[in-house]
């Protein structure tokens, strides 16, 4: 396994360490660095969505900030200019009024025309006058006061009991006075606060919209990937004809065509192997036909042969049958391997089918076996089975029963009984039967746990391998049982029977999910 993405070079000992003589290590690309860990934990779609959301958030925040501060600045400047202009106008009014003798300062201040929210404070002849009780001389910041009283006009921002205020001071040296106007910016602050809220809300909406767009874009961008995933699943399921539609996206076309090329190569390879097996089997059929026909002729003239020749003929006949079975089984296997096995479905009564199949398992492997296989195998019908109909491929079903019977006859002293039951068991009206179980029990010693699954492998004989008796099976029987059952969408497994023998349980759905050819018309 390649680690950390570093190129792997295994120098073969004795080859002088020539670089490039890489051993046959299966290559697999893998993300090595830890920083990919979080990223890979999140799906691609989540990552794209997050990126879009973060981008939208950053952008909208910056935009909102700029908008807010620009607006604020422009408001303040405008207000400050207005207030200053007003203050100067008022200051000159006050100055003129103070020139004329006998002016009541308080009345004068009241009469001054001010902007809404602004208050006047006047310092005249060492006395302070104000239009508001709350805003007097003390409300004005000290530095502003000193600056103005020393003869310089000034304006200053300050905060008075939580509200921003602007004070504009104008010295009036001609009348030994100074005029101040204190302007409250409470209203402006309210406006700005509203603006801030609106902008924040807009930023949030934009972020959410960004996330939504990201999600949509990711899904849209990944849609072809979903197609490839589906195709891969189909191919893994044996549908080797599956191809990906390349579409018109240049980025994805490459991936799609690489994927299709891979599948084509894979398919060609699998088909080549399957065809080879199939061709070999077919080629063997011609000589086998001559053999079986000729042996048939010899059997017809059996009585004319001496006992030794008869015995030889019997051996020949037995093994020819076995050989033929093996060729048939290989052909069947090659069909499964090529994915060309088809179901030919018929709707039948399961018990009748089992009975016919069990009856049909006479002399599967020559006459010798027939003697050891007890005939008249009892068939036990479970409750609820009566009246059920099942859609199966009869030929394959017959092979399942025949192969299980052969297996029992060869290794376990024959079949003791066959049970037909439904699944789920009868008795629950709310749960109608959806499958049948055909259970074949034998008289053998049972099958050890580890052997149970492997027994369905090709040519696996497990602990029974020591036994090589006359009329031995082909070694493919049980694996074919598994294949036939799988083609029907069913399952097969091994349990222990009450008497200690093995129980082969075949479960077949009443209606197979696999699409098969049924009524050809």
């Amino acid at each position, binding site marked *: 396994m390649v680690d950390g993405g570093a190129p792997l070079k295994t120098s073969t000992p004795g080859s002088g360490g020539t670089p490039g003589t890489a051993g046959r290590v299966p290559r697999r690309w893998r993300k090595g660095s830890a920083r990919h860990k979080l990223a890979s934990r999140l799906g691609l779609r989540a990552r794209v969505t997050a990126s879009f959301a973060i981008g939208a958030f950053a952008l909208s925040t910056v935009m909102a900030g700029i908008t807010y501060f620009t607006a604020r600045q422009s408001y303040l400047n405008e207000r400050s200019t207005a207030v200053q202009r007003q203050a100067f106008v008022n200051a000159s009014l006050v100055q003129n009024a103070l020139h004329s003798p006998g002016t009541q300062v308080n009345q004068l201040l009241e009469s001054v025309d001010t902007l809404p929210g602004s208050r006047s404070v006047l310092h005249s002849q060492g006395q302070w006058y104000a239009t508001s009780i709350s805003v007097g001389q003390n409300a004005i910041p000290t530095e502003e006061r000193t600056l103005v009283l020393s003869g310089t006009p000034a304006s200053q921002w300050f905060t008075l009991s939580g509200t921003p205020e602007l004070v504009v001071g104008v010295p009036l040296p001609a009348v030994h006075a100074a005029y101040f106007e204190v302007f409250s910016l409470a209203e402006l602050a309210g406006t700005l606060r509203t603006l801030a809220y609106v902008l924040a809300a807009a930023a949030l909406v934009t972020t959410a919209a960004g996330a939504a767009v990201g999600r949509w874009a990711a899904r849209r961008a990944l849609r072809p990937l979903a197609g490839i995933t589906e195709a891969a699943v189909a191919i893994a399921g044996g549908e080797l004809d599956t191809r990906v539609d390349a579409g018109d996206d240049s980025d994805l076309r490459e991936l799609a065509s690489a994927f299709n090329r891979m599948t084509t190569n894979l398919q060609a390879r699998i088909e080549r192997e399957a065809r080879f097996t199939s061709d070999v089997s*077919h080629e063997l*059929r*011609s*000589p*086998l*036909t*001559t*053999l*079986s*026909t*000729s042996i*048939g*002729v010899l059997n*017809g*003239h059996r009585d004319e042969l001496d006992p030794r020749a008869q015995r030889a003929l019997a051996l020949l006949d037995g093994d020819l049958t076995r050989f*033929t079975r093996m*060729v048939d089984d290989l052909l069947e296997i090659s*069909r499964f391997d090529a994915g*060309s096995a*088809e179901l*030919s479905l*018929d*709707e039948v009564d399961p018990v009748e089918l089992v009975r*016919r*199949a069990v009856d*049909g398992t006479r002399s599967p492997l020559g006459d010798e076996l027939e003697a050891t296989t007890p005939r008249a195998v009892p068939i036990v019908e479970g409750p609820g089975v009566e009246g059920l*109909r099942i*859609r199966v491929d*009869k*030929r394959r079903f*017959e092979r399942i029963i025949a192969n299980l019977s052969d297996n029992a006859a060869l290794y376990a002293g024959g079949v003791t009984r066959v049970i037909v039951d439904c699944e789920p068991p009868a008795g629950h009206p709310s749960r109608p039967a959806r499958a049948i179980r055909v259970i074949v029990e034998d008289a053998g010693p049972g099958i050890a746990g580890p052997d149970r699954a492997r027994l369905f492998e090709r040519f696996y004989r497990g602990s029974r391998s020591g036994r090589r008796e006359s009329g031995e099976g082909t070694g493919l029987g049980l694996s074919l049982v598994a294949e036939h059952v799988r083609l029907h969408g069913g399952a097969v497994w091994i349990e222990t029977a009450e008497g200690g023998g093995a129980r082969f349980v075949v479960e077949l759905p009443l209606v197979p999910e696999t699409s098969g*050819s*049924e*009524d*050809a*018309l």
Partner: protein
Amino acid sequence: MNRILVVEDDERIRQSMRLALEDEGYRVDDVASGEEAIASFGDGAHELVLIDLMLPGMDGFETCRALRRQSTVPVIMVTARSDTHDVVAGLEAGADDYVTKPFVAKELAARIRALLRRSRPSGDDTATTLVFGDVEIEPDAGVVRRDGTEVHCTRTEFRLLCELATNAGKVLSREQLLERVWGYDYFGDGRLVDVHVRRLRIKVEPDPANPRFILTVRGMGYKLVS
């Protein structure tokens, strides 16, 4: 003595088949190609033909079709493949039955016997004329007429039609038809029935794609309604 024509390109198989069939009491003529088969069949002396599907030159399908154009002689296809494609194509070319290589001589003999039995006008059928739509069947004479004109049926097609017509209105399963017409047991090949029904429909139905008389009963079998 029944004369059988064996069409098989493999010399050894041909010889062994001749031996086996002669042991069963048939007279056997064997040829190695479809062309020879057509030539030697010309005299009409053969009561049954065995054709290997894979022949050099004119293949088994074509040979069968050529034979069908001139005769309703019973034909058994010999195939090395039991795949749907080959079997159905062979039957559609006009074969009555098929055997798969390698066959056991006894099995082949049984199929031949069943087919020859079928090809003789049977005495057990009801002698009365059967009628549905514009189709008339005379079981005794082995004649099917449609609108007064004779329809050429193979013996298997004829037996199948009789079986369906005598049980008009009843559903016959493929198993029943296989047993009654072909003499097969329960596990016979249902495709035999399907293809023969299709062939029959072409001959007797006004619109074979939308049959009015020979109906498929899904999951059950076939029935004839008049």
